[in-house]
């Protein structure tokens, strides 16, 4: 409760400062717009690939008849997915918070859902389901992890004393949940919903990409890609971004109304149930079960849905396609060639994005003004549907490998930067004051305090960046360069090569999970040596 009053007090004193900051942000935005207008009017960027804002607006106005149907379709998919995904996520979160064994069992499934690049499974969903279902599923998947982990964090961080009061009157597990934990977790859950809202929009748009439906912003974007009309592409991209931003804003408002608490702007990237206790035999059994569970769920889903075996490949089916069937050698060759193109790009893009984010976050310690002017931009791009950005980058950068790199950097940079900047902001003033009191230079402060203290956040940023990097590379490959896994997926879709579609989906999820696990192992080793805790 002491912290609550402290927050209330500090927000009261900085009112003038916020007003000033609003004004600066407005001024910066105005400068940016004017600059953009000049660049667009005189076709200074890539021969007119960047149209002026007024041109985009004029085009938007003449297209105004098209938008309502597309926006409505995307909204339907996204909102239904949002409801289902978050409903399941909150229930799962409660289950995981209450039962550590369930959390450890569900870990494999949770990591798989966190790490899966949505674009990789969108063709599968389109094949297996019809109508709105693929959009709903992808939107729901986009929401699940964020809200589930927020619920678990919220419940497990409930003030122990409040729990003791209820238990002291003989309250059982249900009374604890009903009277304390769920209510105490509400701010965290709402923060999760806020981040999940744009994710649902992104999920729906991604499914529309490969879905072949008529309506939806994603379908509109794909349909307009072939026509040399940058102004329309920008219009659609901005409309999608606006939709995600509005979704984010609505939940930010509800949250502010209900809780008045400070808010986290990043996604947690740790699934619950990482700690293992008890006998080593039961630990191994639970770990194995947790790894097996995603495959069992996959197999069961197909059995329940009754999709024909030709289209829907079970784990055994994928194994058969890749190793046993007559065409296995050719499939392996194509897959390995694609991996040879995708993996280096993913690693280079991710490393560059992280390095850039780390450098800027450290610079912002020395000059706090950097964060202040950069954070709003970072927040907007966090909620921006990545796919809406891709065609625009293609227009600006062409279809060479550089576009892959830029897209990957742009999707990994911002979440990493936000995580790192927040982490560095939490470095204790006291620790900095100690070295300052001995006259340490800004560089020495970084070396002695800020960099070592930010290590947990660097790893959190890496965990966050892994699946996003692969998603970015695959989207760029699919839409722009025609190389690697993304292209293989798109081609197989065209050839109705079901085995390869499933194989690419499974391989990309496995790679993502593998990278994620590698980061976790290194993180645990390095942090344990330094006696530090992982950051959420």
């Amino acid at each position, binding site marked *: *409760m002491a912290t*609550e*009053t402290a927050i*209330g007090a500090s927000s009261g004193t900085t009112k003038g400062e916020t007003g000033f900051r609003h004004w600066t942000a407005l001024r910066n935005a105005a400068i940016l717009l004017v600059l953009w207008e000049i660049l667009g009017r005189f076709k200074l960027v890539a021969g007119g690939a960047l149209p002026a804002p007024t041109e985009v607006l004029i085009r938007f106005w003449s297209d105004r008849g098209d938008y309502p149907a597309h926006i409505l379709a995307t909204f339907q998919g996204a909102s239904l997915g949002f409801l289902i995904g978050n409903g399941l996520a909150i229930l799962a979160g409660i289950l995981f918070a209450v039962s550590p064994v369930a959390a450890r069992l569900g870990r494999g499934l949770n990591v798989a859902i966190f790490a899966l690049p949505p674009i990789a499974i969108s063709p599968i969903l389109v094949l297996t389901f019809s109508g709105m279902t693929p959009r709903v599923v992808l939107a729901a998947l986009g929401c699940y992890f964020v809200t589930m982990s927020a619920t678990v964090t919220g419940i497990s961080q409930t*003030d122990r*004393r*409040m729990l*003791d*009061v*209820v*238990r*002291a*009157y*003989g*309250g059982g597990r249900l*009374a604890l949940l009903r*009277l*304390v934990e769920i*209510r*105490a977790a509400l701010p965290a859950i709402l923060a999760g919903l806020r981040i999940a809202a744009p994710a649902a929009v992104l999920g729906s748009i991604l499914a529309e990409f490969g879905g072949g439906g008529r309506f939806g912003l994603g379908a509109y974007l794909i349909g307009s890609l072939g026509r040399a009309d940058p102004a329309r592409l920008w219009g659609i991209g901005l409309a999608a971004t606006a939709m995600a931003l509005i979704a984010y804003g609505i939940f930010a408002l509800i949250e502010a109304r209900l809780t008045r608490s400070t808010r986290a702007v990043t996604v947690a990237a740790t699934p619950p149930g990482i700690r293992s206790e008890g006998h080593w035999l039961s630990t191994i059994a639970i770990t194995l079960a947790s790894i097996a569970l995603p495959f069992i769920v996959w197999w069961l889903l197909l059995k329940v849905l009754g999709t024909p075996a030709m289209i829907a490949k079970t784990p055994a089916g994928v194994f058969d396609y890749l190793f046993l069937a007559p065409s296995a050698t050719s499939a392996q060759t194509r897959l390995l060639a694609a991996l040879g193109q995708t993996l280096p790009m993913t690693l280079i893009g991710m490393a560059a994005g992280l390095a850039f984010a780390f450098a800027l976050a450290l610079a912002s310690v020395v000059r706090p003004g950097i964060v202040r002017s950069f954070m709003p931009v970072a927040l907007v791009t966090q909620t921006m549907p990545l796919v809406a950005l891709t065609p625009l980058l293609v227009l600006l950068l062409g279809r060479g490998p550089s576009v892959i790199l830029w897209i990957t950097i742009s999707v990994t940079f911002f979440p990493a930067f936000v995580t790192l900047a927040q982490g560095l902001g939490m470095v204790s003033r006291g620790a900095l004051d100690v070295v300052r009191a001995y006259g340490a230079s800004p560089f020495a402060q970084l070396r002695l305090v800020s960099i070592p203290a930010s290590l947990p956040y660097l790893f959190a940023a890496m965990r966050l960046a892994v699946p996003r990097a692969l998603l970015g590379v695959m989207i760029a490959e699919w839409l722009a360069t025609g190389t690697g896994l993304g292209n293989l997926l798109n081609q197989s879709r065209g050839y109705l090569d079901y085995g390869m579609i499933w194989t690419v989906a499974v391989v990309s999820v496995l790679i993502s999970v593998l990278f994620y696990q590698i980061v976790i192992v290194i993180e645990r080793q390095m942090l344990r040596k330094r006696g530090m805790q992982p950051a959420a």
Partner: protein
Amino acid sequence: MTSQTGITLETVSRSFQGRGTVVQALDNVSLDCPAGSFTALIGPSGCGKSTMLRLALGLDDATAGEIGIAGMKPQQAAKAGLTGVAFQDAALMPWRSVEDNIALPLDVLGRKRSDFSAKIAELIALVGLKGFEKALPGELSGGMRQRVAIARALVTDPKVLFLDEPFGALDQILRRQMNLELQRIWMESRATTLLVTHGIDEAVFLADRVVVMQSRPGRIGRIVDIPLARPRLPEVFTTPEFHALEDQVAEALDGH
């Protein structure tokens, strides 16, 4: 006298498994608090006084020994609504108003709140919070929150009252005031009370008996009887008898 509403601990031990070591938080402790008595537990940090309270509340299980609350096991007594508790920090729920926080034990025990509305109003008056019924804890001062916690502890008319450093977070002046109020409340209700405290003066002022504990392993060092007449007035703090009793407790704390 150890009958209906007393607290009894019989050769109670509680140990915790550390990293390869075993910490003996309580070692073979026996204590008998007769019905209607006021007992204060005092001792250095780590002497097991909080552990003892948690065991008596049923929040934790003893490694060995028996604990009886009004002749029942702690959890039974809690479920029967015989006990009341106030913790060191008020542990109020920030989303519940003063009234709702006081009514929390009723919600846990599944009692109808409407039957207790008069009781709640009376308690709010008793702790001097009239007019703050609908206030949220965030809008109250630290002392006011602590008084809400005291009212909450009393809402079920407990026969056994546990107080875990309930005034630890308050300043000395407010603390004196709260001590006087607590004595008045206790003399009206005559609940068997176990108070965990760090303050020698507080212990001597409030209790019939001060149980001085020692650490490593946690055990009872000495029991000092406080024969001062009640009601004890603020003036008692300055009397020579009071100082002599304080000195006895302080000596026992030093291990003499």
